């Protein structure tokens, strides 16, 4: 099975692990992730402005490129997934944005959101299947008590992201079960980590991260996994009081598949 793959800037710099383990694990699962040629930064934040398209064009280019290659597009970074999926939604549903973007890009075939965008986790759930994944695990992570940290980007706005129930998600818990570990449910797993607020109000972001870690520890989690480099930063480097190891989910996947 072959997919176009959009790694994004952070996965080439601060979050190399997220990318490297993800690629290795995919290979072990028999999935080819073909990095899009000449991809550009997704913009990192979904632009809410309705009257300009410049900030959306790089996402559109990635989407068009996948369409022209005839592939579905797999993303891994939560923020990239969020931006690209929502821009794709705009290209499907917002005539104004679609017309302007197509006018600007002057494509041979106009683009109207045809590319299917799926996150790596959705690929595991819907393409590989968690039952199949379980069978391919050679090194089950028995006895490890892992809390899933979802953050916001994958879940919300739920109508657009269509990822999982935003208030009571289960996909990462199902993933944790598939790799042989024990998921620890804790109520703050879908609360905001502080996000970019950490740049302007560090204490606020710290407080947010601490609440999440406290909640996870209270329920007995011994480590956390995430799909987002920014969440990783806030939970791992930015939290103050409570330290809990935080990993990218791909790292544990690679470990379970014996390719770490």
């Amino acid at each position, binding site marked *: 099975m072959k997919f176009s793959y959009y790694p994004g800037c952070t996965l080439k710099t601060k979050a190399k692990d997220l990318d490297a383990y993800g690629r290795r694990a995919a290979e072990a699962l028999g999935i080819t992730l073909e990095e899009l040629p000449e991809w550009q930064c997704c913009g990192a934040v979904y632009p809410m402005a309705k009257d300009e398209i410049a900030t959306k064009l790089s996402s559109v280019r990635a989407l068009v490129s996948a369409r022209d290659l005839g592939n579905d597009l797999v993303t891994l970074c939560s923020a990239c997934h969020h931006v690209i999926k929502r821009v794709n939604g705009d290209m499907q549903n917002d005539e104004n944005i679609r017309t302007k973007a197509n006018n600007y890009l002057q494509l041979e075939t106009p683009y109207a959101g045809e590319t299917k965008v799926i996150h790596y986790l959705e690929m595991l759930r819907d393409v590989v299947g968690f039952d199949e994944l379980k069978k391919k695990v050679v090194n089950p992570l028995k006895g490890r008590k892992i809390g899933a940290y979802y953050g916001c980007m994958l879940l919300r706005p739920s*109508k657009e992201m269509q990822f999982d*129930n*935003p*208030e*009571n998600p289960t996909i990462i818990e199902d993933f944790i079960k598939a790799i042989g570990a024990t998921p620890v449910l804790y*109520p*703050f797993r879908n*609360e905001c980590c502080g996000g970019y607020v950490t740049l302007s109000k560090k204490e606020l972001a710290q407080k947010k991260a601490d609440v999440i870690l406290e909640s996870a520890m*209270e329920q007995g989690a011994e480590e956390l996994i995430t799909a987002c480099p920014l969440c990783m930063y806030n939970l791992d480097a930015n939290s103050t009081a409570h330290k809990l190891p935080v990993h990218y989910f791909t790292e544990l996947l690679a470990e379970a598949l014996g390719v770490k």
Partner: protein
Amino acid sequence: MSSLHKIGVFVCWCGSNIAATVDVAAVAEAMRAEPNVVYATDYQYMCSEGGQSRIREAIKEYGLTGVVICSCSPRMHEATFRKAAQSAGLNPYMVEIANIREHCSWIHKDRMDATAKAIVLARTALAKLNLNQPLTAGESNVVKRALVIGGGIAGIQSALDIAEAGYEVDIVEKTPTIGGRMAQLDKTFPTLDCAACILTPKMVDAAQNEKITLYTYSEMESVSGFVGNFTAKIRKKARHVNEDLCTGCGLCQEKCPSRKAKNEFNMGLNTRTAIYIPFAQAIPNVPVIDTEQCIHFKTGKCGLCQMNCSAKAIDFEQQDEIIERQYGAIVVATGFRPISLERFDEFGYSQNPDVVTSLEFERIMNAAGPTKGQLVRPSDGKHPHCIVFVQCVGSRDTSGCGKPYCSKICCMYTAKHAMLVREKYPDVEVHVFYIDVRTPGKNFDEFYRRAVEQYDVDYIKGMVGKVSSHGDKLQVQGSDLIADKQIIIDADMVVLAAAIEPDPEVRKIATMLTASIDTNNFLTEAHPKLRPVESPTAGVFLSGVCQGPKDIPETVAQASAAAAKVIGLLAKDKLKRNPCVAHSDEMLCNGCSACEKVCPYGAISYMDKEFRVPGPKRTEIRRIAVVNEAVCQGCGACTVTCPSGAMDLKGFSTKQIMAEVDAICR
């Protein structure tokens, strides 16, 4: 078309409703120039006595043979204008309405365009009128019996009122007992009288009234016919207990070893046996066997209830029974249920037993409920010290997860719950999150203020974002909009005022009755202001929450109003029929049966008739369609199905419709 027609055109301003957008004088002037039009005028309110007298006078003065009224929808005032014309000696079916309000002025902004369209609509009505024939309405009998669908307080009240007037009434209730939602309630606002104390005597009255027949544990199978002459089939589901033999002693319930079924009456807060009477005051006081839970039905063994029943009332072989009856009128009183909270996981309802809905809380507070009225947490049976109520859970919700409307009853019952808790347990801290507190109603705001001022209930304007468990506490995160801050409350219980929605059965019933229903599954009234208890389908009346959210006093008022309408209908011996019915041209009919197959009312039958033919045979027998005018409702399905063009509709003939189309395209 007869050139002898003398037609008058009357253009209504409808105050400014039409006149602000349509140049009514220009419409009248344009119509004056049309062939056959001998008189055209405009007036501020055609439907008023002044307007009607203008019509009557013009008919007499100009010898009008037909009238076009350019006004609101014919659903609003067609009957009014027909009556006015008739009183001046004109056949009422020589009146045509051009709807220049709903179809024109209300939906257009540009005066020029709207005026041009109004003229076209008036010409269209004129084109049809030119081909109208005077029609005479026949009469049909009225069956002096009413059917009430739903045995809650709405259905009970309607039935009691109809029976009081001396007519027979049948109540069809799908659950094993009448009583409905009100039977589940503890106290009622704003008087705090006990719901059971005011409801159960009414239930008994309904059961003992010799004019009322109860079909409990029964469902509607089908309805056919029309106003005055409905035929309903009712499926009386097998209770597996003989109602005539059972004494209601309850021994079977005590002996039943299958005790795991969720108790619906207690909103699943505890369990019940497989053979059960829903609650102590149930009517009829006869148990039902839940065949999905019963060991005998699952395995063929057990039979303890049968062995212990000294009345020999248990009948495992009992079958569903179909009852077919004629009714003159039907009241829909199907009620409501709280919405499912699966899309509101932020409140943790599915994850935490101490997060309950208000109806569950009602059962917890009820002396006959699962906790015998003791306020305890469902999770551990401990007494709570802090309760948070959240209003508008799924009401006034524009996110698409809930309902866009206000459920209307939640502000008041939440105030009631808060007050009852504080009254009975002064040690319990009570917080209420609200968007707005809406308490219009007699003594309602005073009631709410008592909760705040006398009982110290802490009302917080804002919404709750998350409820999560922290040890044995529920951490409630919310916003206080007035203080402009985020707050966290450590609560022991959270009570969610879930939105209410019509019982889902109502869709099926509405389809059966061809009664219209809105996007929220509430039944639609014939007119939102002037005919609020009637369905647009003649002979079908609305009672209670099936029409829109309402509390008990409003429900009872509407139930009595619906009953008054039913009584008015049943008091008539004959009903004027709609003369706009189908008829078949026997010379064109080829007897193919296509019309018979599409007729939803079973109004078409076939007969063999002898016709003269040229040639030596002289006559031949042909099969032709015959319409029973008493049954035909004039829907027109047959006219468009007929392949030979033999079927036509009086008052809406194919010719007339083509003339209308031509007039629009002119």
